[in-house]
């Protein structure tokens, strides 16, 4: 395998920890030549620590809950994600019935928003004809939600029709397994 950023340098595959699912070197689609953004996201110092941490377990959350995913035209819906304590959010995915919608993720305590303005579904990886790269939008550094903080997912249906709006949060919880 060639060293990212320096094709002339060689990395012995035996030097790579293939057991780390979030190690960018284990996936050719994530190397610095192919996807520099994801490569640096996964090499963020906090992400490095999370990748190697003990007592953490993978967890995903889908927002909103199933019965509230169909949003009427022009409506906004806030969903308080029922996370377990100390949830590390590192990636997102979003989907719907094909029509665009906006979404935002807000910290319940600080009020900090992940995006400076609501994010359109059409700007997510799956909607950019990059489905061969997978649905996950990785964050530049993982976001930790320490109790009593939790994420609030706001979905806004801006279309003229009822629309299924769904945001999936990928992360890990601190859990002594």
């Amino acid at each position: 395998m060639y060293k990212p950023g320096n094709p002339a340098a060689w990395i012995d595959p035996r030097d790579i920890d293939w057991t780390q699912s979030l190690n960018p070197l284990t996936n050719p689609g994530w190397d610095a030549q192919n996807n520099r953004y994801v490569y640096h996201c996964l090499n963020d110092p906090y992400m490095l620590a999370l990748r190697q941490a003990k007592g953490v377990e993978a967890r995903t959350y889908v927002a909103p809950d199933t019965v509230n995913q169909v949003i009427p035209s022009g409506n906004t819906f806030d969903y308080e994600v029922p996370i377990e304590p100390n949830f590390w959010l590192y990636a997102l995915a979003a989907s719907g019935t094909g029509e665009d919608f906006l979404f935002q993720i807000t910290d319940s305590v600080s009020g900090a928003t992940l995006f400076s303005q609501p994010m359109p579904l059409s700007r997510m990886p799956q909607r950019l004809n990059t489905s061969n790269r997978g649905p996950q939008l990785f964050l530049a550094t993982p976001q930790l939600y320490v109790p009593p903080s939790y994420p609030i997912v706001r979905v806004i249906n801006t279309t003229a029709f009822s629309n299924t709006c769904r945001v999936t949060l990928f992360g890990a919880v601190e859990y002594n397994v």
Partner: protein
Amino acid sequence: MTPSASTQQSNQPTYVEEPAIYEFTTQLSSDEAVTDVAVPIDRDSDFLLTGIWGSSSGEFTLNFRLPSGRQISNQQILNTDILGTANQPVSIGPPPIYRAGSVGPQLDLTDISGATNNITILFGGIRRIRTT
């Protein structure tokens, strides 16, 4: 990992790690839901799950259990949100380790396509075989 030459570790078990893919296929009828479907893990090796991908003839939702018995998601996830492609699997991290002979990532599946749905899910990762 290169085994240490020290005598202190010579009594430690040694393992061989190799790539492995567990393929799960099923057919769901219209709006059918199934729960806790086993994906049996080989009895001679642990399985470290690093990514999943798959294909289907229609939309469906799924959830699966981690080795601890807890489900990975608070509710079922749309297939296109959790199943990547062979080129770019969706990473499950930190990677769960399913013990040899276990029932593996028990799947909950629900068809939402309204038609017969042929589903293939591939669990990619590393098989760890104890050699001593």
